[in-house]
Structures are given as C-alpha cells and as structure tokens.
C-alpha cells in the first residue's frame, strides 16, 4: 500500500495546483483584460490593482518596451492576443495606427484632455491618444562624478567627449521608444548627417545598450553607469528616492514624448478594453495613479489630473517642435532604425 503513496502525493499536488490556479479568478464574473504595458513595471502594477478594484475585471499584464510591443502586435496581427496597449512613447503607437494594427475609438473623456493629447489622437485618426508627456534628457551620478573629478556634462555634444569613455548608457532604439525619441530629437536638432556622426562618436562611450528605456536611470542611481540618457521623469523617480543624481536638459534643446494608449485591432475583450481606455483617461482614475504612488513624474494628459510637484516643467525647458507625424510614420521610423543598425549598432566597441 505504501507504493500507492507517491502517486497520491503527486495527484494531491496536481489538484492543489489546479485549485490554487482556480482560486485566482475571484473576478471571473466580470471577465478579463489582457494588457500590454510599456511604462516601468512599478507603475503598471498599481494601475492594474486599481482597475481591478474599481471594476472587478481581472487584468493579465505583461511589461515590455514600446518597440518590442509594436513588433509583437505586428507579429500577432493574424491572431491578436492582447487587448490594450497602454503607455510607451507615441512614435510606435503612431506607426501601429498607420499600419491599422489598432482600432479607432473616441472616448467620452477626450474633451477633458490637453491639446497636445487630442492632437495626437487626431493625427492617428483616433487610433491612439496621448496619456502623458515628458521631456527627454539625461542624468548623471553626482557622487561618481565628484570622485573621478570629471566636469559636468551640459549638452548633447558633451556626451561624445572621450573623457566619458564607457560611462554612458542608453537603450537600443529598436526596442525602446525612449531611445528612438533621442534618435529623432538629434536628427531634428542637428540634421541627419551630423546627428549620426554624433551618435557614432557617442557609441565609443556607451557601456551598454539596454532593452528598457528607463533602465539607464536606475543604473545611474546605483552608480552602475555614470551617465544615462532617459526621459527626465525617469531620473526624477530615482532622485526623489534619495539617489545622488542630477538631471540635465541639454543646452542645444531637447525633444519630448507624448505617451500613448491604443486598443489592439481584433481584441478579444473589446468591451473591457474600452472600459480601461476611459478609466485610464479619467482624472480621478488612471490619470491619478502614477502621481499617487510616486512612480510617475510625467505631465498627465487630463487637464483636471494632479501634476506631481517634482515633475519637470515643460514650459521651462528648451523643447524642439517635435514632428510626431513625420517621425511616427512607418516609413521614416523603419528607415531611421535601419540606418542606426547599419551605421551605429554594428560599430566596434
């Protein structure tokens, strides 16, 4: 009879596993939502928790950078698995909209949004909408800088100086919307030829091309990298939690992003996707979560939503007139990324 015990034990395990797995849909009655989240996971989690609490819909979330989700949505186009793509810079969302990978939807909350958010929606024929804005820049670790007695960098051109060899970190523009924004910003600031020359010189100073756009800010905070190119709000999170970082708005001018949200075409939970869409745009719903949990220092797109005190003030920064229509278009984005791969990505270290 003892010979029966092991098979019973394994059966118990299987039963326990299944029972535990079926304990999770406490919200099964309201259905579910498959969410593709492109901001940092510390922001995704409270968003999911708040939405589940407010509506009772179970949210299944994965986090990937915006470029990666664009590629995934494109690959899954014949049989879409996701419902909503929330967060990430606007350019991949615009490209997806142009390629009809996302569905148009005019939310009732559209009137409450800032002009730049509505312009984003119109540019994409309402296939996407702006949910936050933030300025590009870079940050450096003040303690490391002082220890190594290096001068403070102030401009984009400074990042190419040989004294910062192996000290700069930025994401790969193919996977990260943040890094693509940097690419497009440099092109609009200096013209394409000079921009690529600058990136080639910067390449010698890059210690790692990360996949996630905000990872360099974390590396700067821990001292793993001296300088990190990210959106300024990513670095603010680190500064607020006590890390010795200083944020720089480059002297030549800088670009900015309009974080966006889109409903995926062919979404299996379309009704729930629209519920998320409206909730994410509402001032007391999705627009307030980031600031409340101290995980977002972007400027929210709803006019009535509270703007965090430490958010970089867009009015004070020298911003370029970022041409979202051009640099979010499929042709231009593909061309620039390929050029980056060929001329910068393949270079020797």
């Amino acid at each position, binding site marked *: 009879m003892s010979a029966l015990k092991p098979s019973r034990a394994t059966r118990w395990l*299987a039963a326990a596993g299944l029972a535990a797995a079926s304990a999770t849909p406490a919200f099964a009655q309201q259905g579910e939502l*498959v969410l593709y989240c492109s901001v*940092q996971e510390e922001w995704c989690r409270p968003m999911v928790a708040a939405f589940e609490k407010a509506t009772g819909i179970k949210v299944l979330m*994965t986090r990937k950078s915006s470029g990666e989700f664009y*590629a995934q949505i494109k690959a899954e186009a014949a*049989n879409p698995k996701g419902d909503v793509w929330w967060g990430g810079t606007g350019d991949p969302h615009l490209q997806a909209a142009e390629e009809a990978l996302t569905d148009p939807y005019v939310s009732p909350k559209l009137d409450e949004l800032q002009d730049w958010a509505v312009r984003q929606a119109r540019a994409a024929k309402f296939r996407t909408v702006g949910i936050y804005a933030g300025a590009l820049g870079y940050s450096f670790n003040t303690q490391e800088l002082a220890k190594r007695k290096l001068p403070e960098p102030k401009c984009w051109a400074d990042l190419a100086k040989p004294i910062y060899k192996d000290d700069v970190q930025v994401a790969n523009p193919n996977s990260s919307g943040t890094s693509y924004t940097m690419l497009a910003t440099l092109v609009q600031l200096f013209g394409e030829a000079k921009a690529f020359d600058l990136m080639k010189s910067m390449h010698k100073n890059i210690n790692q091309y990360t996949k996630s756009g905000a990872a360099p800010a974390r590396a700067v905070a821990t001292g793993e990298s001296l300088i990190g190119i990210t959106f300024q709000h990513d670095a603010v999170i680190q500064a607020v939690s006590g890390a010795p970082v200083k944020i720089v708005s480059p002297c030549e001018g800088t670009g900015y992003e309009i974080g966006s949200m889109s409903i995926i075409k062919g979404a299996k939970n379309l009704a729930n996707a629209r519920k998320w869409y409206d909730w994410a745009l509402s001032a007391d719903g999705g627009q307030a979560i980031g600031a409340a949990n101290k995980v977002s220092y972007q400027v929210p797109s709803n006019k009535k939503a509270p703007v965090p005190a430490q958010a970089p003030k867009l009015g004070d920064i020298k911003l370029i007139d970022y041409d979202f229509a051009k640099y979010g278009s499929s042709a231009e984005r593909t061309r620039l990324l390929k050029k980056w791969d060929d001329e910068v990505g393949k270079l020797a270290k």
Partner: protein
Amino acid sequence: MIQAVALADSSRVLPHKLLAWASAALVLGWLGLGFAQGASGTAFAWWHYAALLALTFLFARSLARCGFFIGDVTVATIVIVIAALLGLFIFFPVGKALLAAVLDNQGRFAPALAIERLLSPDIWGLGCFGGGTHCGVAVNSVMLATIVGFGTTLLGLVMALAAQRGGQRFSSLYSVMAVLPIVTPPFVIALALVVLFGRTGLVTGWMSTLFDIPRTRWIYGLTGVTLAQLLTFTPIAFMILHGALAAISPSLEEAAQTLRASRTRVFRTVTWPLLRPALANSFLLAFVESLADFGNPVVLAGNYEVLSTKIFFAVAGAQHEPGRAAALATVLLGFTLVAFWLQQRWLGKASYVTVSGKGDAGLPAALPTGLRRGCVGFAMAWIAFTLACYAVIAVGGFVKDIGRGDMTPMLAHFGAGFAIEWQGGRLAFVGSAWDSFFTTVEVAAIAAPLTAVIGLLSAYVITRQRFAGRRTFEFLTMVSFAVPGTVIGVAYIVAFNVPPLELTGGLAILVLCFVFRNMPVGVRAGIAALAQIDKSLDEASATLRASTLRTLHKVVMPLLKPAIVATLVFSFTHAMTAVSAVIFLATAKYNLATVYIIGRVEAGEYPLAIAYSTVLIVFMLSLLLIVQWLTGSVKLGRRSQADLVTGH
C-alpha cells in the same frame, strides 16, 4: 466518429488490410487538407484531435492484425501513437522552422537569401582573432562552449578525485551536488554573480573601498558567462566523473602497484586511460549544455552575442525577423546534432564497467600527495564559491538592496511579488508574481504525468519487445534530446501559429512543449529501471495467457514505481525551471515564473528577481524532500554515462 471507429475495430468482417489503409488515408488526408487551407482555414478543436487519435488507434490495431509488430495489438498501438505524436510535435515544427530559413518575408522560396542568411559574416566572422572587433555569433558560441567544456571537465575531475580519493570528508557532497542543478533555475547563478561582481556589486564595492581597485563592468561578457556556466555545469561533470571513477576496479591499480609502479605512474598509465571515455562524455555534455544555455547569457553576456540569445532577440525583440532566427536555429541545431552523433558513436556503445562480482576488489590507489592536496584544496574553494552564490540568492530577497550592500532586512520584495490580501471575503493573491507561479505549477503538474506515461511506455516497448523498426523508434524518442530549447521554442511559434494546429497563446502548447522536451528522460529512466527487472517475469505472465496489456498493468508497472516517481519529480522540476523554450511561448495570459523573472532582471529589478528565485528553489526543494520522505528515496539517476541533455 469515434463510435464508428470503435465499431470498425471490433468488426470481424472488414479485412484488416483495408482498415489499415483506410484509416491511414483518413488521418493523412484530414491533416493534409488542414495544412493546405493554411491560415484561412479553421483551427482544430479538441474533438478533431480526439477523432484523429481514434483513427490512429484503429490504424495501429489493424496493422497489428495484419501481422506487423508480431501481431501484438498493445505494442503496435503504443509504437504508432507515440511515433505519430513525436512526428507531429517534434519533427513537424522543427522541420517547418528550418524551412523558414529558406523562405523570404512573403513566404516564397528564396535560395539566394537563404545562403546569405546562413553564411552571413554575422554568424561566421572571425574578426576578433585578427585583432578586429566582432566575431560571428556561431564562433562566439563555439568558443564559449569549448572553454566551458574543458573547464567543467577539469573541475569535475578535480572534485571527483578529491571526493573519492582525497579522504572521507566528502561523502555528503555527492547528494548536495546531485540536487543543486535540478532545482536551480538556469539564470540564478548569473544573477548571484551580478550581485557579487557587477559594477555596483558587493565584492566590487569591497575591492574598491579596501584596495582602491576601480569598479568596472568586467563581469559582463565572455568572462562572466564562462564563470556562470562553469559554476552551473560543474556539478553535472562531477556526477559523471564520480560515477566513472567508482566504476574503475581497484584491482587493476593494485596489480600495477604490486609491479612496483609509483603512484604517479599508476595514475598516468592505468587510471587515466580508463577515465578517458568519461572525460570525453563530460566534455561533450558540457559543450552541448553551454550551446543551448539561455538563462546565463541573457543576464551576463552584455555585448558578447551567442546563438541562443541572438535567436531570441531575432524573434521576440523589436527586430522581428523569423527568417534570420530560423537560419540561426539551423546553425545551432547543426552543432548540437553533430555533438549528439559523436557522443552516440564514440561512447554510446563502449563499456566502462570494470567491476565484476569477484570478491573484494581492494581499495582504490591513493593519489600522489601533491596532486591530492591540490585537488582537495581546489575542490573546497570551488564548493565554497558555489555555496556563496546560493547564499547571496538566499539572503538577497530579504534585504533592501543586496547589490548596493544595503543589508536592511525587509520583506517588501516578497510583498511586491507575493502579497495576499482579504478582498470581499476571499483570499486575493494580489502580488504580481502569483499569476505566473500558479500557471507554472499548473502546467508542470499536467505535463509531468503525461511525460511519465509516454516515456515509460516507450521504454517498455524498446527494451521488452522485438519488432521491425525498434531501433528507429528508439532513435526517434532520443532525438528531442539533441534539439536545443531555443530551437524548439522558435519551431513551436512558427509551426503552431496558424490553423489547423493553432495552439500558440494557449496552455496546451506549454504542456506539449514540456511533455516532448522531457520525454527522453522518462525513456532513459524506464530503460534503466527495466534493465533491473528480469524478463522471465514477463514470460511467466505470458505463459499464463495474459495479454501484453495485462502484463504491463499487473507485472511491469508495479515494479516500475520508483522509476515512475523519479520521472514525475524530474519532469515537474524541469518544467518549473525551463526557460529557453518557453520564453517564446509564454503570453500575458499564461505567463511562467522563469519568464517573469528574466523580465525583471532585464529591467534591472534584481531584488524581486532574487526573491522569486528563492521562492522557486524552496518550493522545489520542499517537493523533493516530501517525495523522498513518502517513498524512502528517490533515485534520480538520470545522468548515466551515456546521457546527453540539451539545456533547460
């Protein structure tokens, strides 16, 4: 449909040959039609699969009645059904994935493009040797694998010598070393190394404060990955070489000593040649495991590209190029198949057992003193290093930020991942890690019994029955050993993304992947266990007019209980720690623990990754201990001399 099949099967009027042809034609025709319709057709539902299975049963039984398989219906059913499943879930996807290498983005046959992809300098460039910059990714992988192969063999030998001949202090070492690689997810060591030696790592911090050594990123790249793989694969080499050393009869060495050979000479002329096959086996095993390893390179490789990570980024990254991924997969598969074939040819047939039953064989010769001291010293140092890595993982989840040296104890990381709350009168698992954990346990629990059944039935048929095509069947069951996880993962998304077999995004594909990846282990365990059971038991059962099915059920299965338990446990733990195949197959809806952890590592969120890894390891260790307690002992003898497994 199933009733019709059952009727046809039991009919005594219909000729068997006709039934065989008819059922085969129906199965192939149905599948063929489904594939011809391709993306525009409808996907098979569960009852399609059931009907196809029923038809396959009918085919097998009629074939048996025609005279094949010595007229044994049970054997015929087992062989045909398993072969068909293997064909559908291993050969078809891998074939389709390799085919994708010769197709362009529109799906047309493009031989020029295929050649360009397969022979691209990206893969084969030798730039780094000539003082240039980058080597091709295949060259990188092979370099890494060779270094790791030599390294682990050497280290394993040193430790095996120390354990067996260096004194009595190491007997418990064996059980610890045997368990470690089974319960450890493949990236845990890499994670520990980053925490210790990364730019802001613990040791780097101490070196910088105490000795003013500047902090660099030296751990990222070839050095780091080599170190991680050495630490991960040495226990396996140790087990093989320990077994080999134990199998060498001491009487040969004693004979040499009585002929006045010095200890060095005994070692050089007697022990070493007997060890050579095991050394070669260990090298090949480590070579293949290194090639197929995904978890360590993804964390530590930095700018050093290897095949497994490059395939992953070609598919799942922002540059979605299935053709290029397929070309890389072909190259990787080529390497592992060559290594697998070499291993089968050189070592599959050789006998390294020198122990016979003749009385006291004596004590093994002691090592020369210098060698002994060196071995023992080095072994202790290496073990200490390995244990330090595990200690980092054990502690890291409980402190604020072990990487920065911030040791304030806090449970917030566990809280973020594993929080449980009361919501509306029910337990709600609100931590972000629960979804993936439950899915992983569920999938592993479903896959483990299926693996055991398929594996052991195959083992029975291979060892106990004689029929035409037995060798081929044995080869077929072993082939999935040679296919690296990354290749299977890519193959599954390519093959099962469109109708009729539209399985991606679901739970079924994860279960299938685990079942067919782990099946060879069940086969091996079954073969080893059945070798211990005398054939005369089967024959006695047969003379008492029991059918094969009854013999299987009443005689063989009860005696195989230990092998069943071992296979169940191994498949379960392997499914929980697998990453290289499933990283392509996990979705938002069905996420897996290892995939989630890698996501956290890539985002730089190490504390949560470490906490989750700790949970996984503790969970699997507890499981092993419970099973061990329930059954007395679990013989996890999966690593026999002739074993070769490609990665997690």
